[in-house]
């Protein structure tokens, strides 16, 4: 009696997670993004081993060109600081700020989006007004103002970027949660007596995750860019080296020694590009998967 039921068309298909990763790796652009990102992570991880000294210390002759001195493969800036060391140590700051700021943004965005989309009505209206308020203020100026008020440090910069970048995500999550809240999945959970928290965290959010994962990678990229811009303007943490700060420091010698600004600039481009490629790849892979068969 059970025979006709056991013949499932999906028998041949392997597990959901395997296929997602597998399909991601088969996309050249996503693979490139992953490789670049892995390279930057490796730089951040081995910064202390590869370049043990403080990257802000004067290390050699100022304004050495790349390749001029074998001890400084990427050259030095006008203060004689090792650019290669700065790039490696700067990767830590960029990834740390990018990652944590994106996390802050995800927590606020998912929290507000989920509450708004699930409960609707008055809660939704109130939370969406707050979201719109954040959306109407230009995010970079907002971040700039917050950092200027709070005094620049890694913690304040991270918090400021996180606080100013969640509004788009909140709207995205809200739309997804609204869709799922009215689905039979949520209905079935309600009928089985599940609590609101359980329905949101166990049944709705995991199914709304695909677009969130995609925007998370873009959030990290944006946070890295924002941090670089702040540092370039001199509002970075003065105690750590950062790519944006290096570009800012190289500004004065850009006519005579463009490599001082260009090298950290390329690092920023590569990091942001890697995250965008990954985001695009994830978008393609997760969205086709999300379509109803």
């Amino acid at each position, binding site marked *: 009696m059970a025979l006709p039921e056991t013949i499932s068309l999906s028998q041949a298909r392997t597990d*959901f997670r395997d296929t997602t990763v597998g399909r991601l790796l088969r996309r050249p652009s996503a693979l490139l993004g992953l490789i670049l990102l892995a390279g930057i992570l490796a730089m951040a991880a081995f910064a202390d081993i590869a370049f043990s000294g403080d990257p802000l210390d004067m290390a050699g002759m100022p304004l050495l060109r790349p390749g001029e001195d074998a001890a400084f493969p990427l050259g030095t800036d006008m203060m004689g600081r090792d650019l290669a060391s700065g790039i490696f140590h700067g990767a830590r700051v960029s990834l740390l700020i990018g990652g944590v700021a994106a996390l802050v943004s995800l927590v606020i965005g998912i929290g507000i989006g989920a509450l708004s989309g699930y409960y609707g009505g008055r809660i939704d209206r109130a939370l969406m007004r707050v979201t719109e308020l954040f959306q109407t203020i230009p995010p970079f100026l907002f971040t700039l103002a917050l950092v200027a008020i709070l005094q620049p440090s890694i913690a304040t910069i991270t918090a400021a970027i996180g606080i100013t970048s969640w509004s788009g995500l909140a709207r995205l999550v809200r739309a997804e949660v609204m869709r799922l809240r009215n689905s039979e999945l949520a209905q079935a959970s309600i009928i089985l*007596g599940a609590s609101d928290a*359980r329905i949101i965290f166990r049944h709705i959010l995991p199914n709304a995750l695909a677009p969130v994962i995609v925007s998370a990678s873009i959030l990290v990229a944006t946070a890295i860019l924002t941090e670089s811009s702040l540092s370039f303007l001199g509002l970075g943490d003065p105690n750590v080296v950062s790519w944006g700060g290096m570009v800012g420091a190289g500004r004065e010698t850009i006519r005579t020694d463009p490599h001082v600004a260009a090298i950290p600039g390329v690092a920023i481009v590569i990091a942001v590009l890697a995250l965008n490629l990954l985001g695009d790849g994830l978008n393609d892979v997760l969205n086709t998967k999300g379509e109803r068969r």
Partner: protein
Amino acid sequence: MSDPVSREPVLAVDGLSIGFQTRRGLLPAVRELSFSVRSGEMLAIVGESGCGKSLTALALLGLVPPPGRVTGGTVRLEGRDLLALDEAALRRVRGARISMIFQEPMTALNPVLTVGEQIMEAILEHEPVSRKAARGRALALLERVRIPDPERRFAEYPHRLSGGMRQRVMIAMALAGAPAVLVADEPTTALDVTIQAQILGLIDELRREQGTAVVFITHDLGVVSRYVDRVLVMYAGRKVEERGTRDLFADPLHPYTRGLIAAQPRAGAGPAGAERQRLAEIPGTVPALAAMPAGCAFAPRCALADERCVQAVPPARRAGSGLVACHHAGETHAV
């Protein structure tokens, strides 16, 4: 379980009215509906789309979606009026004392959790047992809904199961809290005919084994006729006839019921070349909620309708073991 059909109804609906609040006022969708089900009994609520049967099903769990709301009546489950309970109390009742299964088992299962996890969750929601105990119970439930190789299916995701299996899983989840009443809203409509019969057979077996009362909502009279004890026919929000299944098919009293039975396609009506009969149909359509006639809602489509039908809503009258709401009930069988 030795005496599955007890005397006392486990679910008693009395004068239930549900309306939709619109700008043009309250539009009644279900009107003064009364019925009851005893333990181990299976009742079918039959009617066309829009007759209020699914709304009734949701009302039994206190889940009428806005802008709809219950405007009157009581739903007593084991003596307690569900409509008077607050949300927290309702949550404790749902899944534990009354549960429901749906038409589309794919969209009702969570695609990111395994079948086993979902059944365990349904158990843990109502009982503070250990995860290990819940796991054992979940496996037993999979076995009870006749899923072969439950150990393997336990760890599988819903997309790996066929439609029939998914519906079995839904039934297992619905039964996790050992409810007194199971509401089944068109649970076989999305399935193949052969699987339909299996699922119906399963529901039938389970209610006999466990004494669960079943309210079976369907638009297809033929599907349920083999399994249910009683049939309640709804038309435009009202009960028009409620009879024992055998009586209803042998001698339908309401012209609408007669139309429904006549409209059943019959397989094997004769070999090729034999006289072919055109499938009977009921002329016209269900009146819109906003344009309900003053009298019998079926009058505009009814061959027997006269002045009385247009003016007064027919009251429900005893007819043998059941009830019928028609001025002309049993007058003539020629429609």
